[in-house]
């Protein structure tokens, strides 16, 4: 076998190396800056300290913002789980007719910028219920709507690969009731799909910027909005804290992402790939 199809050639190793540097350098510089005590007019920091890490990880502002992001994430995940699992079950097992409708809805957050969805939500509430604007409920609902396709595709994929329809029929033949079948047979069989979908929803809800900025702004300062304030503000030490928190978030997300690829089936290992596996051409139907 030659290197055209297997193994990496020299030029490919150079390309991969260059890309690794491009993706790695920002992380290295963030870590350096978070540890720097003096870094003015030099290529590398001159003094190092752990002070920024101490202040940022114990700062009440950071903890409060992280808490808000976490609460938002938990609520979004909860809404998506409650809405998506029954719908996906119905679409695969009992009423295939609803599938095209759900697929059409699921394409919206992929095709359209979330900023446009947020803008639309602002216009809608201005017309129907102005008091909702800026509320936690509206923010959560909009992010849940924008992220639901991640979970839906993961669950639908899992239902199809595990032949949920045959499973339910077999369970029905052996006398199991509908609800019993779902709880005892279906959900356990699609556990990994639910988990990987949930992690994707959580990751995007936690880092969400456009919808939060538009619908909540300063009224609900999540971690990304705190980062924006640190970036724009010129108060001393803000940069170091921003660097420390950004670095931590990246590493946490990386670990989360490693988990996703580990629990996922090899066939569908990335969120965008799964999203676009939906495109009818690639599904054959």
């Amino acid at each position, binding site marked *: 076998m030659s290197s055209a199809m297997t193994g990496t050639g020299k030029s490919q190793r150079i390309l991969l190396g260059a890309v690794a540097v491009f993706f790695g350098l920002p992380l290295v510089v963030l870590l350096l800056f978070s540890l720097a005590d003096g870094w003015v007019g030099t290529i590398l920091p001159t003094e190092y300290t752990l002070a920024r890490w101490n202040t940022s990880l114990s700062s009440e502002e950071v903890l409060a913002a992280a808490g808000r992001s976490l609460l938002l994430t938990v609520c979004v995940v909860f809404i998506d789980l409650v809405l998506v699992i029954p719908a996906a079950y119905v679409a695969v097992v009992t009423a295939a007719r609803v599938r095209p409708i759900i697929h059409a809805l699921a394409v919206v957050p992929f095709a359209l910028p979330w900023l446009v969805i947020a803008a639309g939500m602002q216009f809608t509430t201005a017309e129907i219920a102005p008091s909702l604007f800026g509320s936690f409920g509206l923010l959560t609902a*909009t992010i849940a709507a924008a992220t639901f396709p991640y979970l839906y595709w993961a669950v639908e994929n899992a239902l199809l690969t595990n032949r949920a329809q045959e499973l339910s029929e077999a369970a029905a033949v052996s006398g199991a009731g509908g609800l019993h079948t779902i709880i005892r047979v279906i959900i356990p069989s699609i556990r990994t799909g639910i988990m990987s979908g949930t992690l994707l929803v959580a990751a995007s809800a936690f880092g969400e910027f456009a919808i939060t900025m538009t619908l909540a702004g300063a009224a609900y300062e999540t971690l990304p909005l705190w980062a924006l304030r640190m970036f724009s503000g010129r108060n001393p030490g803000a940069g170091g804290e921003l660097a420390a928190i950004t670095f931590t978030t990246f590493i946490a997300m990386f670990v989360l992402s490693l988990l996703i690829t580990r629990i996922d089936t090899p066939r569908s290992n990335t969120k965008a790939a799964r999203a676009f596996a939906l495109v009818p051409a690639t599904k054959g139907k």
Partner: protein
Amino acid sequence: MSPTRSGNADSGRAPARPLSAQSLRAGRRSRVVAALPASPLILFGIACLVLPLLALVKSSLELRAGGIGFDNFVAVLSSSVDRQAILGSLQFAAIQALLCAVIGTPLALAMLRLGQRGRRWWLPLMNVATSFGGPGLAFAFLLLIGTSGAITMLWTQLFGGNPFPSLGSMFGLNLLSLYIHLPMYVILSLPSFGMLRPEWWEAAQVSRSSRFRYWRRVGFPVIAPFIAAHTLQIFTWSMGSYALPYVVTDSPQSVPLITVEIGRDLQSAVFGLERAATFAVLLMVLAIGTMWLYRTIQEQGAKIL
């Protein structure tokens, strides 16, 4: 199996006869009941995704003087400031899409050849990078190529001068955005490029074909439709990207962009939001158009295989 069919099977011994109106109605009712658990998601989707888009269309067509018409679109297209924002967005998205295709295609092919073990580390990294945009990333690049950034300092000491334009310039914005869009392109490409079979290359070798000839006659024609489709997708996503541009394009010298204009209008204006609505509808139309094109091209690509 649909409920009506199983109902017929139950009364299997009776001679076939037309369904009575009653059993038809019962069948329809049980079909509705079967679809019922999906209704909360569908209603939720309509309320939070479809309704807002309709509201945008309505606002973009509503005239301040009353009535409806395309005046808002005419106003946006004839204002030089707004035209610059549209041009800025189009130019940024085109460069970004082109960069992703040129760098991302060989990158995705190289990653495919890494095998399962190598990809185990690359894929999560790419996944995280796609959702990493925002103030943190902008700050990292500021530390690297800002006026007193590490690379800028290094350059100054070696060659003198500062070659790096600001992060909000066309160059800066494109460089920063590659951090998000390049992984997106690769993630989109891996499954479709994976369709290139090793047997094809082996067959080409057996028939003494050169590597260049293999790529020109076999490899490239197979993946070309997918390259086109994914480049188009990156173009659309770049048109709509918001977090990074919002953070770095705050000086008057920065590239004007549609999304940033929408965001600023939404946050500041108390009235006169029709401009934001009009911009948003323009983005919507573009997204729908490219989505349609994307699927058409992909279907073509799938036909080859």
